[in-house]
């Protein structure tokens, strides 16, 4: 068994057997329960209005609007929960574990620091990827069962959400080299919040036709590509929606949805390599 496989196996077992995983599962169950309730109420309200009231004069498809909005909301929550998991799995990897004395017995083994860090990343990204896929599938199933609505693209958005959590895990690993566990946790959530704020700024910028705000939001979403991945995924679930329904979607929570273009994936991989390289270089020089 190679050193990388040993570290990945160790980190996976740790991820699944720590109490935080149980907490995340309970939170997830709570979220999916609330989501099912909210989706049911939303579709019932819209469908009853459609039956009794006049047709929308602008031709907005209320059912489509409701399904996309609810599912978009679930994607935001999925990203948030995935980010929480990614942060908790990685925030203490270097300095936090070194301060507690957990790291030193592993580092002195022949496996070496780069493999240790890479193994931790692979494990965290895998756990978060599987988790995000399961929550996404749960929300998809709920939306389809209750509202008979499915997104225009199914696979692409979930892959992008998984990649977004991998980017957060990588940033958290980099932070763990310099910061104690608590400080790193705060830093990761501030960075995550900054990404979200950038998305909202973009939405406001578009509504006000402010080029400056839009540019700031766009730059921020590339500096923090988990936001660009999320926005692109959000855009993809209504990729085929046209007309007034599309316009109505951009006025709601979907204002943050932006197609990122072909450069998104190369940039994501380059970004992961850059963050990983910085983390490895800093870890290699760190006294433990």
């Amino acid at each position, binding site marked *: *068994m190679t*050193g990388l496989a*040993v570290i990945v196996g160790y980190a996976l077992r*740790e991820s699944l057997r720590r109490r935080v995983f149980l907490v995340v599962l309970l939170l997830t169950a709570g979220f999916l329960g609330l989501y099912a309730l909210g989706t049911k109420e939303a579709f019932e309200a819209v469908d009853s209005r459609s039956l009794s009231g006049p047709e929308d004069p602008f031709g907005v498809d209320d059912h489509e609007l409701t399904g996309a909005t609810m599912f978009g909301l679930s994607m935001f929550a999925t990203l948030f929960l995935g980010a929480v998991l990614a942060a908790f799995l990685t925030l203490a990897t270097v300095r936090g574990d070194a301060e507690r004395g*957990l790291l030193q*017995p592993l580092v*002195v083994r022949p496996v070496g620091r780069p493999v240790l860090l890479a193994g931790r990343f692979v494990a965290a990204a895998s756990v978060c990827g599987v988790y995000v896929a399961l929550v996404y599938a749960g929300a998809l199933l709920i939306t389809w069962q209750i509202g008979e609505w499915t997104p225009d693209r199914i696979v692409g958005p979930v892959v992008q959400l998984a990649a977004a959590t991998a980017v957060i895990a990588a940033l958290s690993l980099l932070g763990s080299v310099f910061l104690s566990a608590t400080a790193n946790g705060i830093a990761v959530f501030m960075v995550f919040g900054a990404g979200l704020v950038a998305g909202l700024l973009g939405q406001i910028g578009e509504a006000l036709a402010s080029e400056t705000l839009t540019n700031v939001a766009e730059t921020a979403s590339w500096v923090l590509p988990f936001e660009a991945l999320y926005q692109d995924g959000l855009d993809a679930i209504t990729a085929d929606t046209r007309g007034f329904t599309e316009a109505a979607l951009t006025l709601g929570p979907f204002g943050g949805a932006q197609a990122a273009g072909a450069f998104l994936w190369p940039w994501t991989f380059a970004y992961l390599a850059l963050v990983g390289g910085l983390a490895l270089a800093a870890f290699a020089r760190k006294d*433990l």
Partner: protein
Amino acid sequence: MAAAFSARGLVKRYGPVTALDGVDLGVEEGELVGLLGPNGAGKSTLVKIGCGLVRPSSGEAYVCGVRAGSREARAVMGYLAELFRFPGWATADELLTLHQRLAGSTGGESERRELLELVGLTEARARRVETMSKGMQQRLGIAQALVGTPRFLFLDEPTSALDPGGRRTVRGLLEELRRRGVAVLLNSHLLSEIELVCDRVAILSRGSIVAEGRPSELARPRGVEVDVDGGTRLFAGLGRSDVPRLVADLVAGGEAVYGVRVLETTLEEIYLEAVGEDAG
């Protein structure tokens, strides 16, 4: 054959603080060397440089002839940190299995069983670390350090959490290691422990080695005590070689001699003298 461990001119600075100030130290194959010194003397820094956890500011350290911290050096050594923790969710057996894989050990279950027996944890094999006492965790730490039959061991305060029974077990273990030819650098505050098991002692104070040698070489004669009719008389300045002449003179002078003790400085006295004001 290369020394199990050698340090040449090791210097380590943390900003304005000099933790090690030109340390030279060697541990031969199969030798058990005790490292003594007050808190902050640089003992753990020296051990950490040997393990590759800390990079020296200057100087060199080698483990079994290869640069300390290199993959090759880490493959032939074991380490028990002063402040360590193992994942609470793992059982003793799982922890040793993990370290076997990391060390590339092919010992399998028989090695794990033998190590747990060696540290008196046979019954705790399936117990999770979080349910173990501190002493049990320390013994598990020693077993972990021995995974993969290392040629050289760094043990940093291996008995600090142990009760007297546990300390005796570790002493027996160190003697067993000596029989197997494993070299050990033992960092401890327990002078009696060092005196009992170590071949050689190095005393570190303010980042420098201030005394080094076999305990018997470091000891100085403090005089001879003789029990006579009038009580106990101390003959200061005399040593073991003076005893026959002293007893003969006393008997010739009409004294009845009931007992003779040669007094030497204890390791504690040697230590306190060596570290001076740094002791407190």
